């Protein structure tokens, strides 16, 4: 040992003159860093109660609880996370996964109590000192645990699609569907919104697990027309999808289609194992649209003998006659219908009630009646020149094309309206070789048509003229039609939900076309009902009043579909059919 070794320890004394390490007032001087993962905060308005935080919490520290002042709506479960600080490990996975970005962490970290029961609170609702702290951990832009982008759907290019009636949307491959299905967080918010309350998270999980048989069974639990709904459903579910808050919602509709696309229809019977014992009771259904078919399926599987009366020469109703083939190929629709037929449902075609068969005969011969005749009476524009030759209704065009008749629309058409029928008519006209111009009273964002349809119509180069109030149609000298409208401005009225178009005085425009297609909506046609029944059944604004079992005011008569529900889409009709079947079952078994 050297002398140095004996002396060097005394070097520590030098430190006596250094600035000490000690933090003088640690409690006051040291707030958590700006990114500190401290106690939780939740933006109660932003949160939708999807429960992803609960699922990802590996400590089972999060419960979803109802909170005062938060109502359950279609987009919000009304539940909020309650965190148990006897479990939490402050890993912030709940913050990372949060589908809305409402959950955050403050940089506060001191909570002391002598009672172990108090360490539970609902962030955002409980008054805590850190409720409004700014600093703390929150989601970052470049780091997400979710997949916010939808898997692109392979589609025909607009250039190709506008030329033919081949289906535009090609459908997911297995790999794409699995990837898309993986994006689901299984929150289940969509189930309430779906009119049929389909078990969406469950069948998506089945896709993920590649168990398509199970997926098909889940579909048929609530919807006997999956191939149809997989294509033309209005997919209200996607509007409330929690992934859609920050990103693109799951392609729920296309996933449903994927399931049916993958399974050969000859195997349906084996997979679904629909077994039933005939119970000897008979039900008649008027209209072989989605409502009627759905009711038929659930009635026949409950053991009833079902007969459907259909006025047209093929079943399918508005789906066949009102939706063009490039959106809803007929073989797919036939697949859905065939399976229902296979189960023993009798469909009598070309039989118009009131003409070929009397309503009263049905009423007397069957144990119950269900009618779902749909809206097939186009509204009139109520303008001059509407009855000129060359003015068609949108439905008529679609109907003709389905039947293989080529309507005489010439080289250019003006389509009036902004709904799905208008889009379909405009795009059908394109495929028939005409230039389409779409004319609508309000703005594009006010159009009731699906956004995808509007988008595709744009892509296929349909011209859009908006804020145009139709005035009249005139015949021109060269045999064309002149559609004249008045430009409008949008004026917000007090008390009105949306602004309405008000004509700008003197700003009148016109367009010369070969044909005008009016597609401004449809009403119901109740001519099949004899007066003695029509007087007993109650209506409101042209719609049949039904109870939750789809029962009309005449106990034996049930109704559903577009003539009864406000949404007037296929999935609602299917849901009505299901409810009616349950209602009829209840009604008949009570006796």
């Amino acid at each position, binding site marked *: 040992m050297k002398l140095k070794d004996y002396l060097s320890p005394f070097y520590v004394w030098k430190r006596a003159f250094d600035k000490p390490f000690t933090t003088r007032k640690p409690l006051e001087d040291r707030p958590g860093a700006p990114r500190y993962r401290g106690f939780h905060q939740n933006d109660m308005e932003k949160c939708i109660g*999807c429960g992803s935080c609960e699922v990802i919490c590996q400590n089972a520290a999060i*419960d979803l*609880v109802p909170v005062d002042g938060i109502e359950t709506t279609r987009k919000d479960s*009304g539940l909020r996370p309650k965190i148990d600080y006897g479990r939490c490990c402050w890993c912030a996975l709940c913050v990372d996964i949060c589908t809305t970005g409402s959950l955050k962490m403050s940089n506060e970290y001191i909570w002391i109590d002598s009672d172990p029961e108090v360490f*539970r609170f609902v962030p955002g609702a409980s008054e805590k000192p850190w409720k409004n702290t700014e600093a703390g951990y929150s989601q970052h832009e470049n780091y997400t645990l979710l997949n916010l982008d939808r898997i692109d759907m392979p589609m025909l290019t607009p250039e190709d699609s506008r030329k033919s009636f081949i289906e535009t949307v090609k459908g997911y491959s297995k790999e794409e569907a699995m990837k898309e299905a993986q994006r689901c967080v299984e929150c289940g918010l969509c189930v309430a919104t779906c009119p049929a309350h389909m078990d969406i998270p469950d069948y998506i999980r089945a896709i993920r697990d590649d168990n398509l048989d199970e997926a098909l069974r889940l579909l048929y*639990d609530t919807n006997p027309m999956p191939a149809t709904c997989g294509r033309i459903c209005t997919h209200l579910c996607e509007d409330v999808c929690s992934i859609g808050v920050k990103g693109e919602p799951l392609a729920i509709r296309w996933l449903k289609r994927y399931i049916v696309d993958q399974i050969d229809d000859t195997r349906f019977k084996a997979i679904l194992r629909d077994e039933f014992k005939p119970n000897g009771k008979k039900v008649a259904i008027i209209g072989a649209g989605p409502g009627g078919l759905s009711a038929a399926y659930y009635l026949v599987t409950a053991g009833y003998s079902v007969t459907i009366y259909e006025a047209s020469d093929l079943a399918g109703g508005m789906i066949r006659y009102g939706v063009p083939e490039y959106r809803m190929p007929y073989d797919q629709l036939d697949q859905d219908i065939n399976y229902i037929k296979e189960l023993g449902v009798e469909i009598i075609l070309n039989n118009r009630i009131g003409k070929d068969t009397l309503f009263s005969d049905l009423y007397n011969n069957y144990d119950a009646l269900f009618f779902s005749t749909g809206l097939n009476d186009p509204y009139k524009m109520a303008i001059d020149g509407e009855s000129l030759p060359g003015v068609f209704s949108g439905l008529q065009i679609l109907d003709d094309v389905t039947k293989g008749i080529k309507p005489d629309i010439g080289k250019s058409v003006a389509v009036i309206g902004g709904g799905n029928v208008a889009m379909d008519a405009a795009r059908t006209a394109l495929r028939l070789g005409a230039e389409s111009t779409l004319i609508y009273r309000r703005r594009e964002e006010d159009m009731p048509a699906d956004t995808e349809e509007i988008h595709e119509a744009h892509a296929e180069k349909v011209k859009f003229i908006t804020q145009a109030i139709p005035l009249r149609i005139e015949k021109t000298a060269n045999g064309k039609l002149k559609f004249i409208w008045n430009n409008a401005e949008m004026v917000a009225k007090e008390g009105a939900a949306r602004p309405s178009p008000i004509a700008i005085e003197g700003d009148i425009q016109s367009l010369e076309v070969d044909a005008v297609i009016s597609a401004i909506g449809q009403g119901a046609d109740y001519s099949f009902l004899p007066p003695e029944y029509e007087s007993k059944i109650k209506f409101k604004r042209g719609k049949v009043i039904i109870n939750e079992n789809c029962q009309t005011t005449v106990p034996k008569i049930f109704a559903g579909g577009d003539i009864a529900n406000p949404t007037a889409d296929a999935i609602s009709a299917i849901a009505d059919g299901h409810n009616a079947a349950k209602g009829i079952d209840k009604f008949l078994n009570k006796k």
Partner: protein
Amino acid sequence: MQEILNKLIDRYAIEPIQENRHNQAFVTIEKNRLPDVLTWLRDYEDYTHLAFITAVDYPEIEKIQLTYMLHNYILHTDLGLRVLLDRTRPEMVSIHHLWKQVATYQRELREMFGIDFPGSPGLQENFALEGWKDIPPMRRDFDTKEYSEKTYFPRPGRQTHDPKEYMKEKLYPSAKEDK
């Protein structure tokens, strides 16, 4: 890496071989040959470092897999040797004479998986647990959550709701009785 695998195939006719990376491979070896192979690898092929011994439980095939991970410090390659044991009475030849740390590993495996290594020193002593009476905790059929709830009873008073069910209750209670 390929070289040693070829040698293993030649000498011991070992298959199958799973090559993970350029410097890592796993081979499955017959139970009784393992000490022999290990000794050969250690003494002649420079696989001098035993990184660990561990087990994986496969109740679905009624087997427990033992993994011996060897490392070669010259070539910097890892060789994992797998041995499949019968699950009902798993027993394995002890190799505590080859490396000093092995006895502890075997003690741990006895405790956590219930694998017997006859002759291994201190095998019956506790490793991490004390007074354990249930089935060995690392077996797949041991449910730790259930055990914990039964034994250490979590603090009561918690209740959660499933958004799907809760919305059903709130928004469309009529559909409740179905299904």
